[in-house]
């Protein structure tokens, strides 16, 4: 676990570009380095016995692409498809292997260009998400956008990335998810 100070240093002062997306009412952003492309929602083939956050697989130009329901991964109810629902195709490095996967999000918002000093460290208390997954925060108008450490989000085999020592209601939700996946 890095300290707040180190974390600040890790964020370089050069400009970096992020793609922001919405899950429920919250807005997250991932570095565009990882984004391959954005697809409209298409039929997803569910794989039996997979954990609930794994929505299934789709055909991406002849290859089979796993799709992950980010809402479930972040401890929310499963995605209900709307016209705004999108699949963001990401190119990640998981355990030193290149992995391409799609994430299901409620909506893709915008592309942000942020400079290092604009990014605030994420408060280690007060958010329900585990601090290691959040690279930092950026305040836009009145909302906070959480910048994700997207590689790490998928490296850990944990079901959801919510902090377990958060409010009781959420813990229950996590447990509920675990149960359905067994």
């Amino acid at each position, binding site marked *: 676990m890095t300290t707040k100070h180190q974390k600040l240093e890790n964020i370089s002062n050069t400009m970096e570009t992020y793609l922001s997306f919405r899950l429920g009412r919250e807005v997250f952003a991932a570095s565009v380095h990882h984004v391959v492309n954005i697809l409209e929602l298409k039929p997803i083939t569910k794989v039996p016995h*997979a954990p609930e956050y794994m929505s299934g697989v789709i055909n991406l130009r002849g290859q089979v692409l796993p799709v992950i329901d980010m809402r479930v991964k972040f401890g929310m109810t499963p995605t209900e498809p709307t016209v705004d629902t999108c699949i963001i195709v990401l190119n990640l490095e998981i355990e030193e292997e290149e992995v391409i996967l799609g994430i299901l999000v409620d909506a893709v918002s915008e592309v942000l260009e942020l400079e290092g000093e604009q990014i605030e460290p994420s408060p280690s208390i007060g958010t329900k998400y585990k601090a290691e997954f959040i690279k930092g925060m950026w305040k836009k108008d009145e909302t906070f956008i959480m910048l994700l450490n997207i590689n790490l989000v998928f490296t850990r085999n944990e079901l959801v990335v919510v902090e377990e020592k958060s409010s009781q209601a959420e813990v229950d939700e996590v447990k509920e998810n675990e149960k359905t996946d067994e």
Partner: protein
Amino acid sequence: MEVFKQKFIEEATEQINDLEQALLQLDQNKEDLETIESIFRVMHSLKGGSAMFGFEKIDRFTHILENIYESIRSGEAKVTSDILDLTFQAVDHLRKLLDETPESEKLLEKENNKFIERIQKALDDKAVPEHTSLQDEKTEGKVKTYFVRFVPDEDIMHNGTNPLYLLEDLANLGNILIVPNVDNIPSFEKINPEKTYTSWNIFLSTNAGINAIVDVFIFVDDEARIETHKISDYNLLELEAVRNILKETLHKKPEIKPADIQELIIDLESVYHDKEVEDIQPDTRKKVEHSISSIRVGADKLDNLINWVSELVTIQAQLSLYSRENNNPGLAPIVEEIEKISRRLRDDVFSIRLIPIANMVTRFQRLVRELSNELGKEVLFETKGTETELDKNMIEMLIDPIMHIIRNSLDHGIEINAAGRTAAGKKPKGTITLNSYYSGTNVYIQIIDDGRGLDPQAIKQKAVEKGLIEEDAELTEKEAYDLIFSSGFSTAKEVTNVSGRGVGMDVVKRKIAELRGEVEMTSEKGKGTTVTIKLPLTLSIIDGLLVRIEKTKFVIPLSAVHKIYEFTHTEIEEAINNLFLADEKRVPFIYLRKVFNIEGAPPEIERIVNVEYQDTFMGLTVDEIIGEYQAVLKPLGQMYKGIDIISGATILGDGTVALVLDPNRVIFEFANNENLKV
């Protein structure tokens, strides 16, 4: 030069493999002159090649090694186990030398010198020369007549080869008749003095054998077309009249086919028939075919080809779908034709990658030989059905698991000493058999030992100790054997350095499962143990049955499907004990909709696909049968690693994804599940 070096390394690797193979043969029959001859030949060409491409160590090493076999060949020494051991080690050493890197150079130099010393020593105190009867046989070899067509490439002289020297070498072998073909020489002003325009038709009567002739051309293989044919069992060139006939014929028809010469000769031969009595001993030596019957292709090229064929099969499915939907009478027959062709293309392309299992057998023979020495057990290694073919990639991935199984059989299976075996009424020498065969669309490989066999009771006890099962668990024999494949299980009381180094049979099982294969053990106490590996024929395309449950489409491998039945949902719901009636027989079924947690209302009429499972049957319920489908198997990827009931996915004509079921895993997982009830 680097390119040539690479080429040499490739060839040398093959030659070393051949050498190893030949040595194993020699180990079985230490006086087999033919094998000694071929060992010598391999060493000789290794020596020549390495000198040419600057592999100085290999050159020195093979030179000295060759001396041993030279003396054996000439009858001065005899093949002993010591010499064989030394040569086997030499083979390993040669492999190391080939892999030489600048970093390892110093070390190898040292090793090399040491090894050479050892060989020198072995040479000095070699067995008392002994003349074997076999030796004499060779020198008394009958004089036969061969036809050689030597067509050098135009540029043969660029590499410093003088074709005339080769002819001289040939002439030294016996009675020779050389007829040059000068038809291709251009007019004088067009002649390039650096090029060779002449080719030669040669008759040679010699007792040296066809291999000696082939040896002459060993270094110009790539620079010339050489055809060698035995045309007569007699010394044809003895008679001046015959010489003249041959000469004339070849002058007239320089491009004459060897078969035609043979026809011509049959008449001439009759002269000799009376003179000699037919030799009864058949010519065991393999006919050396010098015309091109195979070509070498890089494995990556084949992989590309297979990828393209896979793409083609996918696109063809799209086309078929389009044609069906649009009902165009002109299009339908064309699409059908394309479907047929792509199916054949698929089969042919996949068969290219198949190589016989014999390719990996050498390594197992080595293993058995060395291990049995180490353990002091006498063990015979037998193979059956090594012509069975498997995907090259699969063979490569199978070597380690099979090595491990053989190691186990030798270490734990075969009795500790011969006395133990005789006491059990068995031959003192143990046997391990590698048996492989096709069955349906699968390949089976069995490793059979005739050792002590397994004791299910002991296995159970061990598993209880290790906490793998409950004390009061009821196990069938088969379930007990299956325990051996669970992780953290090892029946050997002590850990020997042969088997049981931490990696167990669970790793073997996992590796085989990665190839979509299965492994199973059967055993009879006191009689022996059999490990059976079942593998799919190819890794990437399967013939399947496309079915649907709600919106999800599944592919069931056609090889497993026996028959399909139709039932109403009520019938299925009311079935007692989840049994359905398949042609008068009661067969259990698995309600897939339920076990896969697929939501939605079941249709009024459902289908049961009756699949074969380990000699019995099991039904799988689905909503609808869509039809037969060639599925190009795509991996589900890392994210779905833990899910083994699905062996992969495939892309359908409409662009959606269908999941390929592994019926065996599905049944294994759910057959004994209490929650089966619909």
